[in-house]
């Protein structure tokens, strides 16, 4: 849903490019959408990895001061790896933000919640009640609505 329709349908240039098979024009526009999807996926992976690292550290860090606790957290390999993956997603995000309105692109990151919630279920055996499943469905509906609401931006 994110990777399709890589061309701004609201602009004359977008319509022209839609009619052109020219690979240069198509790939140029697709990169923005690959960047949105990529940053969402990498952020979700990063968050899950950070949580896995914190789960490993939490017993040793339970009774120390806040600052010490943070230092323990930042020394966890999985936390660092998670932050690294998150960082890569962030570079993609900066690229994507420079191509769209922030009020359009930011809510699309809600797909993160869907991915991380499912990840919490599969990786950490966190229980997902029926209401949360409904929420996942509504988020997906909302992101689809956002796509069809259009990405037209003020320049």
């Amino acid at each position: 849903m994110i990777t399709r329709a890589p061309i701004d349908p609201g602009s004359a240039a977008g319509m022209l490019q839609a009619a052109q098979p020219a690979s240069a024009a198509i790939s140029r526009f697709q990169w923005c959408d690959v960047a949105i999807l990529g940053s969402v996926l990498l952020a979700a992976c990063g968050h899950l990895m950070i949580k896995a690292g914190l789960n490993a550290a939490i017993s040793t860090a339970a009774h120390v001061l806040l600052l010490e606790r943070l230092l323990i957290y930042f020394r966890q390999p999985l936390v660092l790896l998670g932050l690294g993956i998150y960082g890569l997603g962030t570079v993609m995000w900066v690229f994507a933000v420079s191509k769209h309105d922030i009020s359009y692109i930011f809510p699309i990151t809600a797909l993160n919640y869907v991915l991380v919630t499912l990840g919490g279920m599969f990786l950490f055996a966190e229980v997902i009640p029926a209401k949360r499943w409904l929420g996942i469905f509504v988020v997906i509906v909302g992101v689809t609505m956002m796509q069809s609401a259009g990405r037209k931006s003020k320049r």
Partner: protein
Amino acid sequence: MTAIVALWASIILNGLAQVLLKKGVGHSNDSQSTSAQWWMSLLTNGWVLSWGISFVVATALWLIALSKLDISYAFPLLSTSFIFVAIISRVFLKEVISWPRWASILVITLGVILIAEK
């Protein structure tokens, strides 16, 4: 209690950070976003730097919150920053937000609130 305070501080700062980033990067064209010069210029851009600082602080607060809360509970609450971002971007960046976009933002936020509720 500490975890809840840290969570909300992280959420609000996260929303503000997005608007600061957008203010910094603007609308790039393709020759800009594929040039090293443009990327390097972001490193000394005050708006982008303030985004970076907000981001680091928000992440530290997030780690504090996450150490005590289930990720599948804490993460969805971040959705409330969609509304903050929409309002701030409208006022501060003068972004034009059509009613279908507002509707989408509210539906997404509703969905995430449903996810967040236990």
